[in-house]
């Protein structure tokens, strides 16, 4: 079956398309596992930002897909006016149905929460919490930032703005992957994503990465918690990415890179996924359609026959395929076996 955007349907490619837009690169933190190499202050003006937003809208209209967008940085709250300009656009854009904001949570105050609460399509403000304890979180994200992030989450919750937590697992914090779920329930957030770090930033090399044995036991523990909580808690534990199906065939999904998502950087450059740092064009210079239809990188990602032999032999290839970003970061070959896969 061929999807509206000309590509074969895959498990994750429902009738929606996801953009992750890093509209600025400035950040007030320097987290250990951050994937940014630079923190440049060059930023697009409002006209160019709106040109990119319009290009996304036109693409969705052409493909007849519902749009989902996460707006982030850097730290998006360093430019609240630009952030709200984009929120205004997507709030009023028919194809967009879901808006999220990805933030470190440290700059959230009553004023911005008040503005967030006016957007009906803003379905989630995701705050990064990399530890269930102050000690662990601050060791990764800087002193005082655990308290600030929790305060930000509290303000959002008080205003009934939907919230979620992002926990990026590394060797430094993976031991708290289970207790972060308890913290999420205690804080009353709506969802939690526990995702492994990709070693692509200047402070994150392969030694930071959770090895496959520990990743397996971590995923198994989280999957068990998810089953226990099912029906007993409003917290959603997100397990939609590759490898999860290895612990439970009902979990996980094929990596959407190349099929139903695109990451856009502060200068308009496009990546298949934020963690798969192979530029496929620039939205302002090339246009979305040219990138989407002609990028050799994207076509390679869509061709499952190019996956490593191990993946092709795997019974879960249709639902998993491994993380292409991890494969690229750790082997230099984006179609290689996911280095964190534990399957024999």
């Amino acid at each position, binding site marked *: 079956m061929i999807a509206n955007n000309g590509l*074969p349907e895959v498990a994750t490619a429902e009738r929606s398309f996801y953009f992750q837009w890093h509209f600025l690169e400035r950040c007030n933190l320097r987290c250990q596992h951050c994937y940014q190499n630079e923190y440049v202050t060059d930023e697009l003006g409002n006209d160019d930002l709106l040109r990119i937003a319009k290009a996304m809208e036109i693409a969705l209209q052409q493909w007849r897909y519902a749009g989902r967008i996460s707006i982030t940085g850097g730290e998006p709250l360093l430019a609240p006016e630009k952030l709200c300009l984009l929120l205004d656009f997507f709030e009023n854009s028919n194809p967009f149905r879901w808006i999220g904001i990805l933030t470190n949570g440290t700059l959230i105050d009553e004023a911005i929460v008040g503005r967030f609460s006016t957007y009906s399509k803003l379905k989630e403000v995701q705050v990064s919490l990399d530890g269930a304890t102050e000690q662990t979180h601050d060791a990764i994200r800087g002193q005082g930032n655990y308290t600030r992030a929790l305060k930000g989450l509290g303000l959002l919750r008080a205003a009934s703005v939907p919230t979620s937590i992002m926990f990026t697992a590394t060797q430094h914090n993976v031991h708290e992957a289970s207790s972060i779920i308890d913290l999420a329930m205690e804080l009353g957030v709506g969802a939690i994503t526990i995702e492994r770090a990709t070693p692509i930033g200047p402070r994150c090399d392969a030694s930071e990465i959770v090895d496959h044995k520990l990743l397996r036991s971590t995923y198994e523990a989280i999957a068990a918690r998810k089953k226990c909580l099912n029906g007993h808690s409003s917290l959603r534990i997100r397990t939609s990415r590759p490898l999860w199906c290895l612990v439970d065939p009902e979990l996980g999904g094929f990596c959407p890179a190349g099929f139903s998502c695109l990451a856009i950087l502060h200068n308009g450059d496009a990546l298949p996924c934020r963690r798969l740092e192979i530029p496929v064009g620039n939205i302002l210079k090339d*246009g979305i359609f040219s990138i989407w239809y002609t990028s050799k990188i994207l076509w390679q990602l869509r061709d499952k026959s190019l996956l490593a032999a191990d993946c092709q032999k795997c019974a879960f290839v249709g639902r998993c395929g491994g993380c292409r970003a991890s494969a690229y970061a750790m082997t230099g070959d984006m179609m290689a076996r996911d280095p964190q896969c534990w399957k024999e």
Partner: protein
Amino acid sequence: MPSDMSLLKLSSDYALHKLEGSILAFHLFNINSGEIYKLNAVSFAFLEAFDGKRTVMDILESAIAHYNIDPQILTDDFMALVGQWKSLHILVGVNPESSSERSIDNGFIK
């Protein structure tokens, strides 16, 4: 049989793609408007042949040699398709000297 010696190529507004593997599919993409045309294998092969170096006649003769179809029927279908693609500006004329795209009228470079 027509004797169209014009040189045509795919407009820079368009991109062809053949999807292989478990699904075999042929597409023509308009990279400006985003429109997608699903092609059959023969249409794809015809469009791919318009490289701006071979004349319409050359391509037609190759097609007649390749396909086991009555030459007159193939010629009629081929010329109808080429006319349609030109009118839609999917195929555009090539100036043999400059290789730059030129507008076309009735199959002849203006």
